């Protein structure tokens, strides 16, 4: 059987228009611009004034589709990575499928918190090799602001809303996906919890939970600063290349300080780590596709150039994963 390569064909992003600077947060809670910037690198984030996750995902998908004119009936798969879906059913992916009229696509959501986009790409590239249609859309989209406790200054200042989309194409010649390193450590899952729902029914009357996001900052910090350098080193080894051959490392934009630590630990210059956290905050599953789309738009990364890129993310679950791609 002939094996087909899967490549990244197009990318797009969308964030709500409404920008909220750190200064505005100081009116809502006891915090300061300096405190937030120094510890996280964040200057502002986009917060939804009513658009839900599907609205953002649809706009990001349309942006990706507008750059490469394709027949949408040739899209066989739509995956939305999100931890903030509009509803449990229908999925966000179903709504995207309807909006873009990808009538032949199988559509489902994938839940892996901030690592969701990496897991989604990994799943999509494998499924696409066995599907009859040649295109797949992988989207990371979040309205994190609806899961935040806005009286908790430790978590609410960190996150933002947005969506990014990547259109994958199966074709005969080139292969983008070189190696991957994916992990889950469910034993540490309580370090980041969001959207909890209590069992309440006629035989079990418990108080409803608020479902707000809670995070053990030190536990997450320790996990990330140990596991991500290791995961990057592993994926490069699996791909039989040296770290020096990687053109850019695109890391989940959770905290600029964490990215600096990873850069130090794997001994690669910070200039190899494109960052945009200052403008978006942590957009969870949306952070990597937004960063990828921006990096392509500003010419740092060029589709079809053969550049070697590492994509790496980490988050609730706990989940983490790294992909080595030739773009």
């Amino acid at each position, binding site marked *: 059987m002939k094996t087909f390569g899967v490549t990244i064909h197009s990318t797009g992003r969308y964030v709500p228009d409404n920008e909220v600077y750190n200064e505005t947060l100081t009116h809502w809670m006891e915090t300061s611009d300096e405190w937030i910037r120094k*510890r996280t690198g964040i200057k502002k984030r986009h917060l939804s004034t009513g658009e839900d996750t599907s609205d953002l995902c649809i706009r990001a998908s349309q942006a990706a589709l507008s750059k490469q004119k394709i027949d949408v009936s040739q899209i066989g798969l739509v995956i939305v990575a999100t931890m903030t879906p509009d509803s449990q059913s229908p999925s966000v992916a179903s709504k995207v499928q309807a909006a873009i009229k990808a009538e032949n696509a199988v559509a489902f959501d994938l839940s892996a918190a901030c690592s969701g986009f990496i897991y989604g790409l990994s799943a999509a590239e494998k499924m696409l090799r066995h599907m009859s249609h040649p295109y797949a859309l992988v989207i990371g989209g979040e309205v994190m602001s609806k899961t935040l406790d806005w009286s908790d200054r430790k978590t609410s200042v960190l996150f933002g809303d947005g969506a990014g989309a990547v259109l994958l194409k199966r074709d005969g010649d080139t292969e983008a996906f070189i190696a991957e390193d994916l992990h889950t450590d469910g034993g540490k899952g309580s370090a980041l919890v969001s959207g909890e729902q209590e069992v309440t029914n006629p035989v079990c009357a418990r108080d409803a939970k608020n479902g707000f996001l809670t995070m053990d*900052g*030190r536990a997450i*910090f*320790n996990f990330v*600063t*140990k596991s991500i350098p290791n995961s990057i080193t592993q994926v490069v080894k699996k791909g039989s290349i040296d770290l020096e051959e990687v053109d850019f490392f695109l890391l989940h934009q959770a*905290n600029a300080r964490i990215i600096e*630590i990873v850069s130090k630990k794997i001994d690669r210059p910070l200039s190899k780590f494109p960052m945009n956290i200052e403008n978006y905050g942590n957009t969870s599953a949306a952070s990597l596709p937004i960063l990828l789309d921006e990096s392509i738009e500003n010419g740092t990364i060029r589709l079809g150039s053969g550049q070697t890129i590492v994509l790496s993310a980490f988050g609730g679950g706990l989940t983490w994963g790294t992909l080595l791609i030739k773009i």
Partner: protein
Amino acid sequence: MTTFEQIQEIIVDQLDKEESEVQLDTNFRDELEADSLDLFQIINDIEDEFDIKIESEEGLNTVKDLVDYVEKQKEAK
């Protein structure tokens, strides 16, 4: 190398300070302007260096606090 010297080296390296600035009675939050993420990193490095576990950073304010904590953990092993 004494425990103090090992911890001093970790702090000097993490916070980019001179050895003379990191003494037993130095308060790393006030005098070295270390924030919570700096402290997490210092604690991580100490845990790796001495093969111990530091459960909470609460009550750890000076270099001596860290040295005492590590000494106690080493004795308990």
